[in-house]
């Protein structure tokens, strides 16, 4: 498996594949299908200080090659996530990336400080890009200066490296990426969902109770690829790529764009075994493409020949 092992800040991963936050709960449901130790990492569901019920239903609506969701960051709250979920996950040999969410700056700081102390949490994913909550979340993710300040404050209290999850719902993603890098981010995760809407043919009204939702699935993959392609050329911190990944081929494409690891989201809902399947398929695909190691693929879309030669060395 050394062909797949990657090292990122805080994360020594046996492979670069992990389920994306919000698409895997805290792993319990998927553990009935396979051994979670097989995964490179797990990005657990967003955690807030207090428990959250989330939005009214319907919370999901299917779209062409995608789905809209407006769950609303439902989670049992910081204490239960630490005492029950992370404690349960400790039985597996897998580093956890804890997704940190909130409405106010203080919320993020409290969750980050406490959850980063847990031994199996090896990195944080700062969720400044959830499109489905009324306050906080996305406000922090669309104004560069605000994102930078929040990143800085979370970095001050976190015991582990901090990755910032970027929203695609901005006019200049490179500016956002540079801002959080300047704020001290150790890495980026991108992209979160694109804000979308679906209307009911009979009623003319939105299908989702929240009216708008976050679009995910294969439909958004080209947007993710383009944004990672742009951002990776302008920052010096690694990117965990996500957005419509379904196959080993998709993973390689994300690496080509500039990612150093890849998260799988919506595809888990369709095939609970998709992550281990991708992990199993990657070595043969790398061999077929002529790579000794998956990290040779990173940034291939924009790196010049000298840079690529260096990476092959």
């Amino acid at each position, binding site marked *: 498996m050394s062909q797949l092992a990657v090292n990122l800040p805080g994360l020594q991963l046996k492979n670069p594949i992990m389920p994306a936050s919000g698409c895997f709960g805290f792993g319990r449901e998927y553990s009935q299908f396979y051994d979670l130790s097989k995964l490179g990492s797990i990005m657990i569901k967003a955690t807030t200080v207090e428990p959250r019920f989330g939005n009214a239903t319907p919370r*999901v609506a299917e779209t062409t090659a995608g789905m809209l969701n407006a769950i609303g960051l439902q989670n049992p709250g910081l204490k239960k996530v630490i005492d029950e979920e992370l404690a349960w996950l400790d039985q597996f040999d897998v580093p956890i990336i804890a997704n940190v969410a909130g409405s106010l700056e203080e919320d993020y700081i409290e969750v980050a400080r406490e959850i980063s102390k847990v031994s199996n949490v090896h990195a944080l994913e700062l969720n400044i890009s959830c499109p489905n909550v009324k306050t906080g979340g996305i406000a922090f993710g669309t104004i560069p200066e605000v994102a930078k300040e929040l990143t800085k404050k979370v970095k001050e209290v976190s015991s582990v490296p901090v990755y910032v999850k970027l929203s695609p719902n901005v006019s200049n993603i490179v500016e956002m990426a540079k801002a959080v890098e300047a704020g001290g981010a150790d890495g980026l995760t991108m992209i979160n969902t694109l804000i979308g809407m679906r209307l009911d043919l009979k009623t003319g009204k939105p299908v989702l109770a929240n009216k708008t939702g976050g679009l995910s699935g294969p439909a958004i993959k080209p947007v993710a690829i383009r944004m990672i392609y742009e951002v990776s050329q302008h920052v010096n911190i690694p990117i965990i790529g996500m957005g419509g990944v379904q196959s080993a081929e998709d993973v390689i494409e994300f690496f080509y764009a500039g990612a150093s690891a890849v998260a799988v989201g919506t595809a888990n809902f369709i*095939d609970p075994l998709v992550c281990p399947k991708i992990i199993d398929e990657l070595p043969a695909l790398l061999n077929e493409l002529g790579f000794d190691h998956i990290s040779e693929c990173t940034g291939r879309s924009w790196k010049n020949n000298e840079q690529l030669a260096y990476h092959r060395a």
Partner: protein
Amino acid sequence: MIRNEQCIVLSNQEIAHNIYELTLKGELVQQMNEPGQFVHLKVSDSVDPLLRRPISIAKIDQSNDQFTMIFRAEGNGTQLLAKKKVGEFVDVLGPIGNGFPVEEAKAGSTVLLVGGGIGVPPLYELSLRLKMRNVHVIHVLGFATKDAVFYEEKFAELGDTYVVTVDGSHGEKGFVTDVISTQNLSFDTLYTCGPTPMLKALEAAFPDKNVYLSLEERMGCGIGACFACVCRTKDDPTGHSYKKVCTDGPVFKGGEVLI
């Protein structure tokens, strides 16, 4: 235990207007232990439609590894499912959820099974099992119109069966609750599956009875991970207690959750 298996189509036929009866064969049938569970089907290998479709189980035949579903071909997913031919495969995830507790109905007692439209199918396997336990079953089945009626004779073989249509084109005219009161049906336990307004009306009408309701909600994963299909519990002092329709349900005891 939930399994994922490619199940082969043994038969697929239209039994009423846009209503299909689909029988699949697969080893996961051995895991189907109670009526009222459902399966989550991938209807196409393509990314469109992307998500699985939750479909209730109408009949379980473990000795032959077969199970039957009855669904309405309405959206693009179920329309594709309706086109599946004998010998083709369907990607099945299941069985999922907690079904109707048959042990709640004592031998010799009377049970009322109330179904509305595409909520009728899971009541068939339930009725078969109750009958085997020497429970007296009465069915009240509601449909929109005559063309949508199915399984009337099959239910009639198991017990008294009242069919009601909204437009009066077959059986009584009106809603299931109308028939229950006009026929003055008495019972010990009520099991029901159908549209939410119907479930609400039944729960409100029989607060003192032993009532079990099967809920429906839009689902993502179907295995409890995505939190798309949650509902609030009735007893909720903190304001954030919930149940997932997919894995905590789809069958709940009356009064357990807010519908």
